[in-house]
Structure formats: structure tokens, C-alpha cells
């Protein structure tokens, strides 16, 4: 898939000396969008009065979102897209860092208005959230350079696999483990770590053979590892990724419309290209994986 590697943001955050704000880090500046009055009209009064919308992101998930070198600004694909969406809707967007686990409780508690943190649009999550889907992407394997070779999920039997907790990949490997067992093969040694950094340490220290993550994240990881890690096998399980809003939130409609505007203006494509996942684009926004009902 997307092993392009040469991520523009990389150099800025690796060194403590680099000062400047995140925007310059991103290299490509995304121009400000014009407000679309039709879209703005869809925004519920409550938000129009406030003039702002609060977006939660877990800033430990590059390139989707991560801390800029100033230690305060969240940068990445989601913040860029979030800002652009806000401009179209005529709202100021505040990106708030939150641990991934805390985003969904925070949405129910009214701490955040929407979540943009590379959410996979899954059946389970749709029970409590609505998703405005904005790209489709799969998962990729990576391992130590010169380590195990894994082509598909079926090759995982008998291997030690490190994944981050709460990810679709965790579910994928759990299902695969059952398959291995029923096929009489060796089971998968699944290791669920609280964050990707710990999963990576498990790879480095040889506790695990292979890790799986969303393709953009896996690619970024490998690019950052200085040759220690390599992608292996094929991308699999392409699914929708969406902007999460609490069920029944009045923001789903304006968000869908705003995304549509961005897609038509080409800004959407620019943002995806900037963060190296241009090929994952959707042609039109979807809500909960389907055409939005008007």
C-alpha cells in the first residue's frame, strides 16, 4: 500500500531543538476554506451561538494526529481536516488532546462535541455513535527487518503478535486465533498492549514477532524506525474510518455537507495527499457506511 515513508512532518518532531509551530512542520500549507452558507445553515443553533466545536484526538497516533514540537498543538491529518470542515461550517474548531479510551466517555459527558482520532466505523461503535466516514483503509503487518514474513492473517498461526488495545486489529487476531485452533494449527500468541509504543518495544526486544496497525500508522512507524522495522505482507480488511459524533448529534448533517464541499473543492484530496494516504480517498461522504439519507 502506502510505504511512501517520506513523511513531511517527521523531521520536526524527532528533534527537541526544532522550535516552530506545527504548520511549518507539515510543509504543505492547506489554504483556508471559504464558509459555505448552505452548510452553515445546517449547523444547529446551539453551535452557531457558541461559534466553536470541540474535537477530541488522541495525539499519540501519527500521522493521523500527534503533538507538534511545541508540545501543545495537535497536528496531523485529522486536525487539518477538522479545521477545514470547521471553516466550511463557519465554526472555530478546537482540537483537544485526550486519551483514546477517554474520547467516547468524553463524548457522552459532553466534554467534546466530536471525535476525530482515526476511528474505525464499526458495528459495535455505531450502537452509541454516528460516523461521518471520510476515508477507507485497511491494516498492515510490520516486523523487525529480516524477521518473520507474514503475508496474510492466516500466516499468523504460531506467531507472537503485538497489537494496541481496543483496535480492530485486536479483534482480527482474536478471530484468527480461533481459526488457527479449529484448523489444528498452532495458536496465536496475542499480546495486547495499552499503546502502540509498548507494542513496538515488544518488537524491538524480540518479545513479539509481528505487529499490526492501520496502514497509515504502520507505514509511518516503519518510516520512523530507521530501518529497524519493515512492512510485510498485504494490506487487508479495508474498512471505513469516520468522524465520531454522539448518537443523534445535530452535527452529522452539517459535517456530511461540509465534507462533501471539501471533496468537491479538492481540499480533501490535498489533505490526504499531504499525509501520504491519498489513495484511500472516498468519492462521496458516507454516514455509518451508507449513503446519507436526505
Amino acid at each position, binding site marked *: 500500500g502506502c510505504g511512501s515513508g517520506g513523511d513531511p512532518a517527521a523531521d520536526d518532531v524527532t528533534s527537541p531543538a526544532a522550535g516552530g509551530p506545527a504548520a511549518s512542520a507539515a510543509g504543505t500549507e492547506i489554504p483556508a476554506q471559504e464558509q459555505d452558507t448552505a452548510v452553515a445553515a445546517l449547523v444547529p443553533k446551539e453551535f452557531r451561538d457558541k461559534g466553536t466545536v470541540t474535537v477530541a484526538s488522541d495525539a499519540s497516533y501519527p500521522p493521523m494526529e500527534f503533538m507538534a514540537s511545541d508540545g501543545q498543538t495537535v497536528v496531523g491529518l485529522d486536525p487539518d481536516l477538522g479545521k477545514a470542515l470547521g471553516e466550511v461550517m463557519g465554526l472555530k474548531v478546537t482540537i483537544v488532546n485526550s486519551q483514546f479510551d477517554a474520547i467516547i466517555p468524553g463524548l457522552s459527558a459532553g466534554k467534546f462535541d466530536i471525535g476525530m482520532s482515526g476511528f474505525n466505523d464499526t458495528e459495535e*461503535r455505531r450502537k452509541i455513535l454516528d460516523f461521518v466516514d471520510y476515508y477507507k483503509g485497511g491494516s498492515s503487518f510490520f516486523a523487525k527487518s529480516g524477521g518473520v514474513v507474514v503475508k496474510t492473517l492466516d500466516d499468523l498461526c504460531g506467531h507472537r503478535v503485538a497489537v494496541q488495545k*481496543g483496535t480492530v486489529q485486536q479483534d482480527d487476531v482474536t478471530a484468527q486465533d480461533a481459526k488457527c485452533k479449529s484448523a489444528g494449527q498452532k495458536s496465536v500468541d496475542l499480546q495486547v498492549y495499552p499503546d502502540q509504543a509498548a507494542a513496538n518495544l515488544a518488537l524491538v526486544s*524480540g*518479545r513479539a514477532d509481528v505487529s499490526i496497525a492501520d496502514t497509515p500508522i504502520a507505514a509511518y512507524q516503519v518510516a520512523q524506525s530507521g530501518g529497524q522495522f519493515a512492512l510485510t505482507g498485504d494490506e487487508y480488511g479495508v474498512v471505513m474510518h469516520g468522524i465520531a459524533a454522539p448518537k443523534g448529534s445535530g452535527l452529522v448533517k452539517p459535517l456530511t455537507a461540509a465534507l462533501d464541499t471539501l471533496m468537491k473543492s479538492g481540499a480533501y484530496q490535498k489533505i490526504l495527499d499531504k499525509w501520504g494516504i491519498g489513495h484511500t480517498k472516498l468519492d462521496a461522504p458516507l454516514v455509518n457506511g451508507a449513503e446519507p439519507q436526505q
Partner: protein
Amino acid sequence: MQVQHMTQAAESVESMPTVRRRQPGRWVAAAVVCVLLAMLVNTFVTNERFQWDVVFDWFTSDRILAGLGRTIQLTVISMLIGIVLGLVLAVMRLSDNPLLSGVAWAYIWLFRGTPVFVQLLFWGFISALYPRLSLGVPFGPEFTSFSANELISPFVAAILGLGLNEAAYMAEIARAGILSVDRGQAEAAQALGMTRGLALRRIVLPQAMRVIVPPTGNQAIGMLKTTSLVAVLAYPELLYSAQLIYSANYQTIPLLITASLWYLLITSVLSVGQFFVERHFARGSVISAGATDRRGSLRRLAARLPGRRP
């Protein structure tokens, strides 16, 4: 002077009934506390956001119970390592041998000084730093070497990380306990021909225990919850088990309540244990005199307040 008055008084009060001191403030306070408690219970039970049905569905589920078992196992083993090593370190630290006390000092400094989270990562992923551990002559030939990953399983790493860290804290607690014992005790023991080791074991430590046990109870209860840090080694103890469940089904609040209830339960059991251990080591103190029945010993603590009328 007042003798006249006194005599009269004495005659008239001879059979006068005694009235205990009235404490109206107490009753007002009691009423306020009762209302507040009622409110608290009321909101806990009626606020549907707590989702008590989900809480109790998960309460005895296999995954939670397995996590609970691992938590208890880690707590017990780590505390044992911590207490034993901590006592050794405390005695070393108080030794007049500068080498022993220096080593103990450095150990305590390093292990108290760094986050146990980092220590757990260190032991868990030691092979990222030292892929092979070897036994041999320092700066000379090696005899044999092991793969660090084989030698140190995640469980061993968890025990090492928690236990060695705990020892540093226990060492300070034991030191304070030993220092709290009157010097005359050790002297009396030595005058009877005891060696320092024997005096320490038979005379000083049993008395130091009165001071050591309460903070050790604190530590054990703290450890119960510190074990949740081993999540970073992908070792699913109680809290991490709950987190793994709610990261899949998003019932965050009820699952956190489930885990908390279990913690509360074990803490209560530990506290009861601590009470009996404390009572054991308080034997011989003034108030334990005559307090052999259970009620007496339950009243013992209150009775120690300065100025309490017996």
C-alpha cells in the same frame, strides 16, 4: 474558708445520680451526616448512568475473575519480595558498616527515584537493551549466557519490577520503625548477652512492628492498585481486563465500577487483616490491658486518643 460549704456539699451529694455529659453538637452532626449519606445512596442507586445491571453482569464474569486472580497473585508475591528485601535493606542502611549502608542507600535512591512504570518497561523489555545476559568473570571470559526473553517472562518482569520497587519503599518504613524503638531496649537485650542480630529479631523488630504495620498495610493496598501498571507488559490484571472489555464494548463506566467494587472488596479484606496484625503487635501496650474480648479491642484505637476518659 470553703470548708463549711464543702461539708454540706459532701453530705447532700452522697447518693446523687450521675449524668453523662450531653453533646448536642453530636446529634446535629449525626443528622446532617445521615441526610448526606441518604442523598449519596439515593443518587448512586437512582442515577441510571451507573448502569448497575451491567455492573453486576460483569462482576463475576470469567475475564474479570481471571484478572482479579492475577492481581491478587502479583500483589502477594510482590509484597513478600518487598517486605523481606525491605527489612534487609533497612538493617543494612542502619548498619555502621559504610559499605552496607552505602549500597542500601544507592538501591533505595535508584528504585524510589524512578517511576515503577519505567522499571516495569526495563524488566519487560530488557532484551531491547541487553539481548543476552551472561554469567562470567567481570571484564573477562563468560561462562554461559541466556536469552533475556527466555529468562524473564512477562510475569517474572512484573514481579521484579513491582517487588524490587516496593523493597525501596518498605526499607524506609522499616527504618522508621526500628528508629522508633527506645534505645534502652536494645541495650537491655545486649546486657543479657544477646548479639545485635538476636536483639534485633527478638526485641527491636517486634516492637518496631507497631510502627511498621500501619504503613505496610497502606503499601499492600497501594500495591493492589499499582499492579495495574503491568498492563504495559500486556499482562491483563483486574483493571486492564476491565479496560480491554470496555475498549471493545464501550461500557466504560459500568466496567470501571465493576473493577472498583472488586478493589474495594479486597481492600476491605486486607484492612481487616491489618487490624488483626496491628492488634497482635500492640500486645503489652497500656490500653490492650484487659481488652481481650473483641469489643474491647475494637474500642482500643479510639481509647488511645489523648485525654480520652476511660
